[in-house]
């Protein structure tokens, strides 16, 4: 509560302190306070590192990461939950937020991802490709249809002409990944970045002609409590340092 009042005062006094009212790049000294970033589940690890790097450059900012399925975040933002920045795993969730008038300016695509089949270590069920997803006797998981990962997986499967024998629709890609890690599921479709994030999961590639390249847009939100820090964060994510971090987590440059 107190933090909110402090942030509100800082934001209110900023124009008078700087002597200008345009949204130009503010000096590092005025970037401070709490920054609420709502980001897709698949960005968990990479954004965690980007958060640390950002806070090293702007020590007066405390970045708070709210990670969940992009569809869940979209609903939160449209319903008025406070957030400064939204990073979505697909453009359709971002578009819905734009349509609801919640975005300031235009979203920018900051990174991209590819789908990959995730299997438990050692690939016990011998999964070779998307065709294996029609096998009834193995346990298959996908993300729920409303979640970007689930939507893309279904597109890839239908393009490949496969009717999957789904056993569970998980609420976000990390929950799905955990069940693969535990060996409770035999196969799932996640992102390349999720498979890369853990040693206990093996990946089976989906050939590029069957795969779906996903674009991740990022935007400052219209109701952002801390727009100055939000703009700085988005600029930071688009810059070389953050892009290098994303590459290390197997994301693709846009």
């Amino acid at each position, binding site marked *: 509560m107190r933090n909110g009042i402090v942030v509100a005062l800082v934001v209110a006094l900023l124009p008078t302190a700087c002597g200008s009212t345009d949204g130009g790049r503010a000096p590092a000294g005025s970037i401070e306070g709490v920054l609420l970033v709502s980001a897709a589940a698949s960005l968990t690890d990479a954004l965690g590192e980007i958060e640390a790097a950002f806070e090293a450059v702007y020590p007066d900012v405390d970045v708070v990461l709210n990670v969940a399925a992009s*569809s869940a975040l979209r609903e939160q933002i449209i319903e008025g939950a406070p957030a400064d920045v939204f990073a979505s795993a697909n453009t359709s969730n971002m578009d819905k937020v734009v349509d609801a008038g919640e975005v300031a300016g235009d979203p920018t695509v900051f990174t991209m991802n590819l789908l990959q089949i995730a299997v438990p270590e050692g690939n016990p069920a011998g999964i070779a490709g998307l065709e294996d997803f029609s096998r009834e006797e193995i346990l298959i998981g996908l993300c729920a249809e409303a979640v970007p990962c689930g939507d893309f997986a279904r597109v890839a499967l239908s393009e490949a002409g496969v009717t999957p024998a789904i056993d569970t*629709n998980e609420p976000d890609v990390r929950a799905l990944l955990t069940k693969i890690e535990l060996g*409770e599921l035999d196969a799932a479709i996640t992102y390349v970045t999720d498979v890369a994030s853990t040693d206990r999961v093996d990946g089976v590639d989906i050939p590029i002609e069957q795969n779906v390249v996903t674009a991740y847009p990022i935007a400052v939100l219209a109701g952002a409590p801390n727009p100055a820090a939000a703009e700085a964060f988005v600029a930071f994510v688009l810059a070389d340092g953050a892009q290098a971090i994303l590459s290390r987590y197997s994301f693709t440059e846009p």
Partner: protein
Amino acid sequence: MVLGVLGIGFFVLPFVGLLGRVPWSDLPALLSGPIVTDALRLSAIASAAATAISLIIGLPLAWLLARAEFPGRAVIRGIVTLPLVLPPVVGGAALLFALGRRGLIGEPLNEATGLILPFSTWGVIVATTFVAMPFLVITVEGALRNMDRRYEGAAATLGARRWTVIRRVTLPMIGPSLVAGLVLTWARAFGEFGATITFAGNLQGRTQTLPLAVFVALESDRDTAVAISLIMVVVALVVLIALRGRWGRAM
């Protein structure tokens, strides 16, 4: 008095908010769709089964905790009460580690019988029972401890055998508490979400109970989510109000 009224407002307001979002004209169509009917069927089966199993296993367990003296009883009571305190998702994860395909008991069970509990309707029943049974155990154990045991003594003195004492003295005396415990157990089972989605997964027609259906619908079809929420509120209210007499006496 003011605080009491505030309390009423605190509970009534969210439901008023829910009612305000109900798409009344579309309601019949939404409620007869397969997503809703499948979820309703699964919720009915799971909550009824969980309550029944809780009674069959929970009643003897409560008896053990209340009447039998054995070392470590306090610890056992604590463990039985854990699902009441732990987040349901933690309960679901624990079930996965124990009864999952690679679980402590689950792996040998699977290898011996081919039985896989996660991602099945039985998995839903197991998860729901796990979180709901403690309610029955705690309520009944309390009643057994607090009842006047002289009546049991009197019956025994009059020549009644052990089972007759239980059947005709003890059980009727704890009757109201037993019913209250069953209601609480059913209510908890009906609303169960975290352990179910973690252990049994989420698939329409097989494991997607009403709470899971709402969760999924919230992100894709708001109207369906509100419609399902409305059913759950109505069903729960009907059950709770119908048993208000018994509840009042036991509490």
